[in-house]
């Protein structure tokens, strides 16, 4: 009976024969980079990391994992915030980092075919000269991959008007857990409609649990010819929230509607010196885009509504540069947190838009209850909140309080009719919440879908649904600074 060590060595050899020696990582120092994703509260060293360069290699790797009876986990850039690509014992992590090419751009049909490891913003960069862009723009877009976006059905600030990943992916190639290759949805030679079941839609957002996506056909949209980007400065989150409601009630659908509270504003200002007022209770970034005709009317209505709700001032980005700078501050907000705290827990919940003031009051009360600061930066137009719970990992009580505070906020989101995840996914972080959000029959129906693709649970196991490891009170073993 070969030892575990010998079995692993044999697997390493087999994988090296598929991708070449330099693309199989098996030493501890090499594997350390892959011990977690952006959810840093839990870590697990993968057994092996392999970096294929083609769909055929991915298929061979999965066949090899089957033969050796080990699970496998697809991984993009590792920016996921819920531990969706956390390794499990004996798992082979299949990194798509080398499969990052843009294969075809078809501006006439407004499509692009890319490999799953292609970085999100590279798509927009490649098609900008045709007056096109790829709409889903998560804040991590300079690092995250299209394959990863498919896995979590990623959003971003502009989803209010443009939708999320599932609205912009026409089809994709995927290697199934039995190593066969399928194409779901539209292939490059197809029209937009394929009929039959929408298995493409069912796989998007499945957090890498149904197979390894290798190539993706994305839909491109026309870059809006014009924009108006406004910054409303308010005394309170309540005023800003009311403004959000009023804008929507006026029949205006902004391209983006983002809110930042005072704590996060101060951190962002210290980091990026945009000129944000440090004493404002809340800032609202409102962006309208589209044809120039009618845009100014919309901007004037927005301005009026801000002032009506007590805005101290309403600024406008006057140039492309100012607009880009404003968005940089927003999209790098998480990165500015280091100025406030050695550690933070990023939360991701959703409430109906009309419940925003209520959840913000609850977050404030939770902050006081647990004695932790909780800055907020979020997609106000969607009701998708991102409370950032600050703590110091050197104090175990703060660690527990941070986790408990996050859990209470998520429970309140559910009580208000929302969801425990708007963008970041369930992963391992929120597996215990699935039974709170969904009834047993619904969860059973999800597990039935999983059996279609992965009856033996070899692909990214132990995620999303409670297991013995994650269904009880969470006590993190290790943490590192964010």
């Amino acid at each position: 009976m070969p030892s575990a060590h010998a079995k692993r060595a044999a697997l390493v050899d087999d994988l090296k024969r598929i991708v070449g020696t330099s693309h199989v990582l098996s030493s501890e120092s090499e594997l350390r980079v892959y011990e977690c994703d952006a959810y840093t509260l839990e870590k697990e060293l993968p057994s092996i990391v392999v970096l294929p360069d083609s769909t055929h290699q991915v298929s061979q790797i999965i066949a090899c994992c089957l033969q050796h009876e080990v699970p496998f986990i697809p991984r993009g850039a590792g920016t996921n915030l819920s531990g969706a690509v956390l390794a499990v014992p004996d798992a082979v992590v299949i990194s798509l980092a080398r499969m990052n090419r843009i294969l075809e751009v078809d501006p006439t049909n407004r499509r692009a075919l890319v490999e799953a490891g292609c970085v999100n913003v590279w798509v927009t960069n490649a098609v900008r000269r045709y007056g096109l862009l790829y709409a889903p723009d998560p804040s991590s877009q300079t690092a995250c991959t299209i394959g990863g976006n498919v896995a979590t059905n990623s959003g971003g600030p502009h989803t209010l008007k443009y939708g999320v990943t599932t609205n912009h992916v026409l089809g994709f190639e995927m290697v199934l857990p039995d190593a066969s290759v399928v194409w779901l949805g539209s292939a490059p030679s197809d029209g937009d409609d394929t009929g039959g079941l929408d298995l493409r839609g069912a796989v998007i957002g499945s957090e890498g649990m149904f197979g390894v996506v290798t190539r993706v056909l994305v839909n491109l949209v026309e870059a809006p010819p014009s924009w108006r980007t406004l910054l409303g400065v308010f005394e309170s989150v309540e005023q800003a929230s009311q403004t959000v409601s009023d804008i929507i009630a006026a029949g205006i659908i902004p391209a983006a509607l983002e809110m930042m509270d005072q704590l996060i504003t101060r951190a962002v200002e210290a980091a990026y010196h945009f000129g944000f007022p440090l004493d404002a209770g809340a800032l609202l970034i409102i962006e309208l885009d589209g044809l120039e005709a009618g845009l100014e009317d919309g901007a004037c209505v927005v301005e009026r509504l801000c002032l009506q709700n007590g805005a101290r001032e309403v600024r406008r980005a006057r140039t492309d540069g100012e607009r880009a700078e404003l968005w940089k501050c927003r999209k790098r907000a998480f990165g500015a947190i280091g100025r406030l705290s050695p550690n933070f827990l990023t939360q991701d919940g959703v409430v109906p838009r009309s419940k925003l003031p209520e959840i913000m009051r609850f977050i404030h009360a939770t902050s006081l209850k647990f004695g932790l600061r909780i800055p907020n930066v979020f997609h106000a137009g969607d009701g998708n909140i991102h409370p950032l719970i600050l703590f110091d990992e050197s104090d175990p009580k703060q660690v527990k309080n941070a986790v408990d505070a996050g859990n209470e906020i998520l429970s309140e989101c559910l009580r208000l009719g929302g969801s425990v995840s708007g963008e970041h996914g369930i992963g391992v972080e929120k597996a215990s919440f699935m039974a709170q959000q969904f009834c047993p029959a619904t969860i059973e129906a999800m597990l039935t879908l999983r059996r279609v693709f992965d009856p033996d649970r070899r692909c990214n196991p132990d995620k999303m649904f409670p297991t013995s490891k994650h269904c009880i009170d969470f006590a993190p073993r290790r943490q590192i600074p964010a």
Partner: protein
Amino acid sequence: MPTSTPITHASGTQVLAQALETARQSGRSLGPPDLRGVTDLIEHIPEDMTATAGCGMPWNRLQSALASKGQWLPLNPSVSPATTLGDVLNQDLFGPSRLGYGKARDYVLGLKVMLANGQVISPGGRVVKNVAGFDLCKLFIGAAGSLGILLEATVKLLPIPEVEAYRARVCPLGTPLQALLSDLQLARISPCVLDAHSLPGVTGHARVVIGFSGSRTTVDWQTHHAEHMGFTEPADLSHDHEFWAAHPRSHVLVQSLPTSQLASKLAQLPSHPWICRLGNGLIYSPASDAQARPHQNSALERLTKQLYDPDNLLPPLPSRL
């Protein structure tokens, strides 16, 4: 071969579950479920732009109720008065506004579905962004009822646009139509409708209908631009209504192709009738008997059907194009 058992009495979900069980025991399929108990607009929250309705609710009545608060579910399939919300979702129906507004899958936030085993599930939710769990809603939309009986749907809404305007022009098929489409792309206007349709007794030409919606300023600017491109005839969407009134969907051939191939494909079609969503690459024409036969589903689709409806109580899978 199981035979259908139409359910004619009004039923709540318990009775429906019982009907499924009865069908299973007698080796028959269920037949069309009676959804007369689920015809209400259950909730409409205008400030959230969401609504929840029973899938038995007539489509036109739903849109009227939403319109009373200035909102709509942005799909405009040509339907009969009997068409329900459930029909629209089960068949993934859409109309000319597909170009500007998308399809049902872009608007459904949550569902209540009875599965073949009688259990009721609630995938999705009531919020506009939600990635918790697998996206089962996508599975049921357009599934023709083959995986479950849709009971309720929560949908995202949009404000009814301030103004809509339509214009038309006639264009020769082939290269001239291709050139017109290229010019429209370059013009950087954003039509919400771009259809073409055949003309009775006329060969080699199509009538192209373009539509805009939004604020008056935006629509006026774009309409003016379109008029300069030859779209001078005032128009509406009657071409779509007339086609679907004359041709039941079960006997319509649907062809889906990349939009760049449309112009040459249309030039090869029999002269009349057909309609085309120029912006989405879809051609609809009466189907011959051979064309009306369903196309085979993939192995994954058949496995999905087998797992969700092992006793074949529900309708067959929708055909691939």
